[in-house]
Structures are given as structure tokens and as C-alpha cells.
């Protein structure tokens, strides 16, 4: 078991690989492509107090080795989502973490109240906006803390993660998710217009990994690394940088099978090549864990997050 959060009721998951918000839907949308029970948890798509419509115009712009997505956080509102998915969450084989987005402390409090005492939810994740200040982080997370007994994961914006991490910790977050996909702008080849949205791709790992290394040295609560993870090696890099777990996102779009490979790998499951399996379903080191790797190394290098990173 991996302890994902600190606090009075620490969240423990069977696997340190979590499906990120915005990619895995609300419950079992990916169940036909991925064995979701192999994951430690799934974070739902963002949910708001009131219903939100999908963004008008272009929502997806292909990039070189990546993609820009602007959905507008569409959802039918917390009550309708709850009515639709409560039974599925309760019956889900994989623990469910609900991702909340709000524009005011009042809204986040109401959302938490609507979900309190529900059996199927193991934690709440709050998404902080890209412009969030220390004050915003304290206000939003502090209010959420007052309204829920569930562990709180705070997902921080990439470029301001280092600035608001301490405020999130002080306000009562039980873990930090570093980071949400950054915002970008790209020209839509179909309409010819510039479109803003969140960007995804393997190159994002270098940016988020640096933020994890920076923040791990000055917060005491666990960190969940997220961004650009496309193979087990990427995920292990986050653990080496100081994260206790990882969230996988857009790899599910390009290689859904890889989500399971990453989860099996970090979950320490020994994978043997089953009779009739294709050669490319197995790779050396798939079953290795950090513990077994440490045993193999003559003198394991101590993991010390650098206090100051080179520019």
C-alpha cells in the first residue's frame, strides 16, 4: 500500500499510479480499454457547483508531439453528477477521487457538503486556477478543509506551483498534485484562429519534474507528480524526484495499454510472459520496484531533492 496523503485519515492506495482528472471521465469510461482495477485511484473530470457548458469553437488543436485541449470544463453540476454516478462510484473497483473546481469559497464549501459521507469517494481534489495567489489557495483549501473530513489533494498550476505550495499546505491540503497541465495558445489549422487551452505531451515531464524537485524540499506533505508520463521510466523519475505517487493523463489517449503497464510496473507486480502473449507486451524490468532495484544496486544513491536548481 502507498500512503498518498498525510492528515488524520491518511489515504492509502494499493498502487501509486492514479488516473488524472480530465482524462478518465467520471467513472468507468475507459473500462473497455484499460483494466482500471490495476490503478490506485481515478480522479473524476472537474465538477462545479453549477452546470457548465462545453466551450464553443475549437476544442482540440494537434501540436508537434502533443495536443492542446480546451473543453471549458463542461459538467452538469455537482448534484446531477452525483445522481448519475453515485451508484457507480460506490460499486467501483478502483477508488474514486472527486475533482472540484470553484470560483469562490462558498461554492467549494457547497460542493464538499454535497459529497460528504458518500461511501464511494476516498478523497477530494481541488484544482487551483492558473492565477491563484497565496490568499486564494489559503481561502479555497481552508474552506474545503472546514467542510470535509475526506483527504484533500490540491492540484497546483505548473508555473505557480512553487509559489502556492506552502500556502496550500498551511491551509490544510493533505497532498499536493504537481502539476495541472499548463495553458498554452496554438493556431487551429482548421479555422486558422488562435486557440487557448491546456497542453499535453511527453515534453511536459521535464517542466513538472523540476517543479516536483523544487517543492519536495520545502513541504512536509506528500507530493503526487503529474505531467508528461508516457512510460514506467517517466513515472519512476517522479518518485526519484520526491513524489510518492503519480497521475497519468494523456498517455491514455495515445496508448491506453501503457497506463496498465505503468501501473503494473510501479505496483511491483511481477509480470511474466503469458503463453500466447505477444513479445511487445513484455519488457525487461517491468516488474521491478524501487525496493528490488535498491537491492540490486551496490550502493544506492541517496535521494536528496536539490535545494537550488541550476537555471
Amino acid at each position, binding site marked *: 500500500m502507498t500512503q498518498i496523503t498525510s492528515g488524520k485519515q491518511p489515504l492509502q492506495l494499493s498502487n501509486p499510479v492514479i488516473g488524472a482528472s480530465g*482524462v478518465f471521465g467520471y467513472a468507468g469510461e*475507459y473500462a473497455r480499454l484499460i483494466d482500471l482495477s490495476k490503478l490506485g485511484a481515478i480522479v473524476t473530470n472537474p465538477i462545479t457547483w453549477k452546470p457548465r457548458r462545453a466551450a464553443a469553437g475549437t476544442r482540440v488543436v494537434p501540436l508537434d508531439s502533443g495536443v492542446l485541449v480546451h473543453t471549458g470544463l463542461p459538467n452538469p453540476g455537482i448534484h446531477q453528477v452525483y445522481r448519475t454516478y453515485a451508484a457507480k462510484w460506490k460499486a467501483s473497483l478502483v477508488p474514486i477521487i472527486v475533482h472540484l473546481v470553484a470560483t469562490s469559497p462558498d461554492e467549494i464549501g457547497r460542493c464538499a457538503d454535497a459529497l460528504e459521507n458518500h461511501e464511494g469517494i476516498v478523497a477530494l481534489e481541488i484544482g487551483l486556477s492558473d492565477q491563484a495567489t497565496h490568499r486564494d489557495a489559503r481561502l479555497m483549501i481552508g474552506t474545503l478543509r472546514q467542510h470535509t473530513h475526506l483527504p484533500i489533494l490540491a492540484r497546483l498550476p505548473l508555473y505557480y506551483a512553487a509559489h502556492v505550495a506552502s500556502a496550500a499546505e498551511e491551509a490544510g491540503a493533505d497532498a499536493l498534485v504537481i502539476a495541472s497541465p499548463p495553458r498554452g495558445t496554438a493556431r487551429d489549422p482548421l479555422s486558422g484562429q488562435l486557440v487557448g487551452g491546456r497542453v499535453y505531451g511527453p515534453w511536459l515531464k521535464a517542466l513538472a519534474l523540476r517543479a516536483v524537485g523544487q517543492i519536495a524540499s520545502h513541504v512536509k506533505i506528500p507530493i503526487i507528480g503529474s505531467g508528461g508520463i508516457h512510460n514506467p521510466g517517466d513515472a519512476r523519475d517522479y518518485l526519484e524526484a520526491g513524489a510518492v505517487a503519480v497521475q497519468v493523463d494523456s498517455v491514455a489517449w495515445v496508448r491506453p495499454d501503457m497506463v496498465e503497464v505503468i501501473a503494473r510496473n510501479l505496483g511491483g507486480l511481477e509480470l511474466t510472459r503469458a503463453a500466447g502473449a505477444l513479445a511487445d507486451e513484455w519488457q525487461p524490468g517491468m516488474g521491478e520496484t524501487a525496493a528490488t532495484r535498491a537491492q540490486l544496486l551496490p550502493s544506492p544513491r541517496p535521494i536528496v531533492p536539490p535545494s537550488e536548481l541550476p537555471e
Partner: protein
Amino acid sequence: MQEAQAIIERVRRVSATVQRLDVAVDRAHRNVGAGQLFLARTTASFDPYLREPWTPVHRNGSSLTIERPAGQVYTPGQIVSLIGPIGRPLPMREKIRTLLLIAHEATPAALMMLAETALAQGAAVSLALLGAAIHYPLEALPEEVEVIRGDDQGKWPDQPETLRWAEQVFAVAPPPYDMSYYTQLLDSIRQVKMEVPAQYVYGLFQPPLPCGVGACQACLIRRSGEEVPACTEGMAFDLTTLHLLAPEGKA
């Protein structure tokens, strides 16, 4: 829906703009319906990042024929990963006698299997090629299909008569022009029919699909007061149920 490997067996260049691939597919992918598609990954690299939409135009036992732009490079023997079938089969009426297909600024590939099915049932099929679609190679179409060439505004000669003749209409237009064209089409139909019956005219949506399973919410279409993913509830929608644009072009 399933992810499985497939093998490109043959690559045929149909015209300067269109090529067709004969692809041997897994058993789970053989019973793909008209209008359904696959999300294909042809390379181990992440460029292109998202999977390509592969639309079957013909089904023959364990093999599917996929239409792709001529500029893409494919080789016989190439192994690809397919996710699908995506979407629902096009809801063509049983015992249909007259079917009108419309391609506006888009390849009619997504309508080809529907045309084959209708022809096999003895129906008369007309295909209106409008805008840039007039350059679509006719040699790629079944001989029995009547081809109508229209203009850039989405009109063609004898349009009212054709719309009255058709028992059902399926149209395809690419993003970002899909909603505006479907609004115009529905308006044209309302001028020749007092009341547009349900399940008479359908529009296909072809937005980029990151996930194909209804999870990412990038392909939501507003229908009858709710928003539904095109990849699981479409790709075709009854135009009378959609929240289309106002005639002035404002929502």
C-alpha cells in the same frame, strides 16, 4: 470497443488526393457498422500525438478498406494499433428506397458503407458533392450512385426536388463548418417540407477525438437540452434534435 493490432495488406492510390488501405483486422473489429470509425496509431513515436481517425469505406470478411489522404505514407505489412469501433452505426431506415447523401467541403468516406448497404437493399442512392468535395474522385464511388455536383454555398440544381425525393438524408461537413452547414441544410429542408420528421436528416460530426470513449469531453454536442459526446452517442445526430445556430449565425 477494443484496442487491437491490424496489418496493412495493400495500399492503393485512388487519385491525386485519395488512397485506400486494405487492412486485416482483429475479429472484434470486423463487424464495424456504417459511419463508425477507428482511432489508429501507426508509429511508435509521439508525432503525430493523437491517433488518426480511420473511416472504413468497405468491409470484406476479415479485411476493411480504409480511406486516407494521399499525402500520408503507409506501407504494406505495416502494423498499426486500432481502437474501435468508435460511435454508433448510422441509423438508416429499414426498407429504404431513396437515400440522399451530402458531402459539403468534406470527403464522403464516412458515408460510403451506408451507400453500399442501401444499394445492396435495392435503394436508389444520390450523393451531392458540394464545395471542395466536388474534387472527390468519382472512381472511388460505387457505379450505381448518382452524383450531383453543387456549388460552394452548399446548393445544387433541383435541390428542393431532391430533398422531397429522399426518404432519408445523411450529410457530412467538417469542423468548424459543421454546425453552420447543418443549420443551412435544415433550413433548406424546412422550405420544402412543412414539418421535418424525426430521423429524416442526420449530420455527421468529425471533431478531433482524443479519447474516443466519452471521457475527455472534447467532442460534446448539444442535443435536446443536454451535452453528449459525439464519440459515444454519434457520430451522426438527428438535426431536428440539435441546438443549431440561428439563421443569422448566432447561437
